[in-house]
């Protein structure tokens, strides 16, 4: 049952791959060679990978650092900062980049892009790591210290090892996200694979060249996934055997580091929020263009939330079997199925959108240009976010409970309904919140697949900025961020609750 569901989910995740395969076959070997075997491709690959590596490193630093500060130190206002550190998830990279560009002169290029992307994506690391730091048993750390290891060596030797799965999972999401991001790299003018795919559509209106480049991006993803699998293999898991309640972890006194730590976390919050926020205010003040009527804005907001909710629900339904399978039947098969959902995660939304157009036209025509196909596109795009959340929640609940239920005569469905789902409920909620807010921010696939005439906050934002009507655009941007902040609060609260998982 789980396997069937997992295969279905993987099939959905691989729609873009089938599409790229079909189009690449049409293009033919010669065209593919001409398109890919060039110096430009090598340069694009180098830039994309360097940017992804740099942003991932930055996110690991900020994410782990922030998680440590808010869970393990005497930083003032820890709970507040715990939420603040998650909030950048609500900020679309195109809004953040646009904000920086309009506030700082000459802000473009590789390093600025790395900065903006780091500010926007470090919560992908921060949330799981904060949850891990909250839920690991401090007893192991205490043993290490009692055996003579100092605080720092205990952190690197014991604590970091315990939270490593969370760090690696968050880092992988960041890496793949950076490869797929278009908003920041376009506005800050960094030539990555994804930007090149987008401009290839403009160059001579030739989609084949663009799709061939996207195929190369899948190969890059495959290499990254392979590397990640190699790293993960050496993971050591610590399990607590026996009952009893954990003690809260010891709080590290920051002492003289209090002020710098506070300053750092405020600086990150300012970089993620204050700069784009200031830009929005400036647009509104400078421009005379005005958004649609309050009813139109409310309609766009309702549409955004409606399709995002549908997308999140569908994604969770598809993710559930894979997440449970990974947790309950770990092994090569579940690992491969789980990884397959990541394979197209680095693809630009435009390519995934076109693949769903292809799917809708050729396979599911009654769904074409309905919210259902758009929701399916969201599932294709964001399945890994959901699978990770379900798997980590399910891994924390002991399979022995399900086995006990089965031995007491309950059927598999009843066990799923009465034992497994309730135990993974927090994970499902967190995953849904994460997918929901990611759907809210999505633009390229939404443009291609939305029902004709349906506007969302993201499409309205695009409409107005494309004619330089920034004042009209800013309320949509602000509303998009505010409405996405709700799910972020849910995520942050969960991550900061002992025993919670992101």
């Amino acid at each position, binding site marked *: 049952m789980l396997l069937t569901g997992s295969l279905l989910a993987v099939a959905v995740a691989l729609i873009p791959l089938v599409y790229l395969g079909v189009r690449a076959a049409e293009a033919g070997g010669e065209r593919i060679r001409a398109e890919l075997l060039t110096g430009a491709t090598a340069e694009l690959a180098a830039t994309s990978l360097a940017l992804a590596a740099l942003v991932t490193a930055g996110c690991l630093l900020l994410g782990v650092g922030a998680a440590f500060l808010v869970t393990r130190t005497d930083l003032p206002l820890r709970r507040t900062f715990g939420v603040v550190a998650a909030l950048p998830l609500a900020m679309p990279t195109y809004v953040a980049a646009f904000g920086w560009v309009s506030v700082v002169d000459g802000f473009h290029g590789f390093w600025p892009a790395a900065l903006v992307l780091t500010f926007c994506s470090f919560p992908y690391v921060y949330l799981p790591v904060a949850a891990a730091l909250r839920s690991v048993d401090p007893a192991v750390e205490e043993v290490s210290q009692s055996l003579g290891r100092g605080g720092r060596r205990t952190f690197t030797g014991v604590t970091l090892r315990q939270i490593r799965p969370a760090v690696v999972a968050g880092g992988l999401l960041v890496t793949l996200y950076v490869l797929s991001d278009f908003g920041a790299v376009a506005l800050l003018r960094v030539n990555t694979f994804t930007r090149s795919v987008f401009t290839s559509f403009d*160059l001579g209106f030739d989609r084949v060249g663009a799709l061939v480049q996207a195929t190369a991006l899948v190969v890059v993803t495959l290499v990254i996934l392979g590397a990640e699998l190699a790293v993960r293999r050496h993971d050591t898991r610590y*399990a607590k055997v026996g009952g009893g309640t954990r003690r809260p972890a010891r709080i590290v006194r920051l002492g003289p580091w209090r002020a710098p730590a506070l300053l750092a976390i405020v600086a990150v919050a300012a970089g993620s929020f204050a700069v784009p926020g200031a830009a929005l205010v400036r647009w509104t003040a400078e421009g005379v263009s005005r958004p649609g009527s309050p009813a139109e804005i409310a309609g766009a907001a309702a549409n955004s939330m409606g399709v995002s909710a549908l997308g999140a*629900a569908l994604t969770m339904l598809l993710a559930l079997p894979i997440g449970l399978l990974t947790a309950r039947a770990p092994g090569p098969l579940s690992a491969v199925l789980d990884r397959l959902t990541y394979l197209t995660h680095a693809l630009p939304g435009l390519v995934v959108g076109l693949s769903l157009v292809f799917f809708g036209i050729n396979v599911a025509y009654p769904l074409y240009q309905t919210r259902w196909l758009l929701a399916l596109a969201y599932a294709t795009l964001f399945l890994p976010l959901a699978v990770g959340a379900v798997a980590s929640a399910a891994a924390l609940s002991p399979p022995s409970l399900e086995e006990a239920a089965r031995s007491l005569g309950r059927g598999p469905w009843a066990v799923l*309904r009465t034992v497994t789902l309730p135990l993974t409920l927090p994970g499902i909620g967190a995953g849904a919140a994460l997918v929901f807010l990611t759907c809210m921010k999505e633009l390229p696939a939404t443009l*291609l697949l939305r029902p004709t005439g349906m506007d969302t906050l993201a499409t309205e934002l695009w*409409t107005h900025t494309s004619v330089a009507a920034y004042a009209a655009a800013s309320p949509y941007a602000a509303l998009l961020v505010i409405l996405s902040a709700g799910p972020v609060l849910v995520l942050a609260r969960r991550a900061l609750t002992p025993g919670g998982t992101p």
Partner: protein
Amino acid sequence: MRTDRRPSTAVTIGTDTRRKAAPRAVVASLAAAVLLAAGLAGCSGEEPKDITVYSGRTQSLVQPLIDEFTKKTGITVAVRYGTTAQTAAQLQEEGDKSPADVFLSQDAGALGAVAKAGLLAQVPAELLAKVPAPYQHAGGQWVGVTGRLRVFAYNADQVKPEELPKSVLDVTGPQWKGRLGVAPTNASFQTFVTALRVQHGDAKAKQFLDGIKANEPQIRDNNIVIVGEINDGKLPAGLVNHYYLFEKAAELGVSPDQLKVKLHYFGDGDTGGLLNVSGLGLLKKASGNAKAKQFMEYLLGVDGQTYFATKTFEYPLIAGVPTAPGLPSLADLKIPAINLNDLDTLAASVEMIKNSGLTS
């Protein structure tokens, strides 16, 4: 304490009250989410519209005109907005099953790509007759709607009047080193390169692109950014389309001559003063669709053309509709008369731009 490669298997259940959540609540909440979303989806089922238009042109510029059309004719229009290039890709993906009746494109090249894919029907002859030959498909499969002039935009504080180039070929000169903004991936730049090749030959066009590349150009994604930066004093000059200046003025709530950014028109048939067009294509399945034809007629009629002339500051393409005040007339400018509707020529231009290194 250590278990390798196995998930942790024991946890303390009783300590976490949230885990006691009523089992039904899980299924119920997921189901409720789907139902809620599905309910919202159901609300979108408005009555079907008479015709469907795919627009690569922006909603705020086009929708008022379409509303006016519906008011006058009673014909309802479903409009799907996107970027021109992505809409062209979508139409090619959809093929014969496309819901679209009409494609309104920001650029002739995209119409050419869709025509080449065999998706466009013949535009009715009486519509083709309204528009000069250079601004329609040689085979009659698309027709231009508005003209968009290539210009030299500059910041009045940073560029002296005597510095302004007489020909676009002069911008490769040393006085423009590092000072010129271009958007080489933009469709209108691509068409401009095609025009260069037609007027001066491939060798000269290549020489020009190499000259631009060697002159440390300020590469931007689009014309809006270039015009904005010129007005802010961040860029001295750039090669753009004429109407972006008017958009900028409208956004700032000032008259165009109050802006720092000014337009310099190339005259005497210079390639720099090329006229690009936005245009209309009729999808094959809508061939013979009277309402779709009526829509195209409206855009090419006096009302539609006057709307574009006065609201988007583009050049009307039919005879008898005046251009917006403040814009020089096409006759005075002596724009180059080049037929630009051959898509294969566009592909060669794109290849040339790519090889020049301007896009990487």
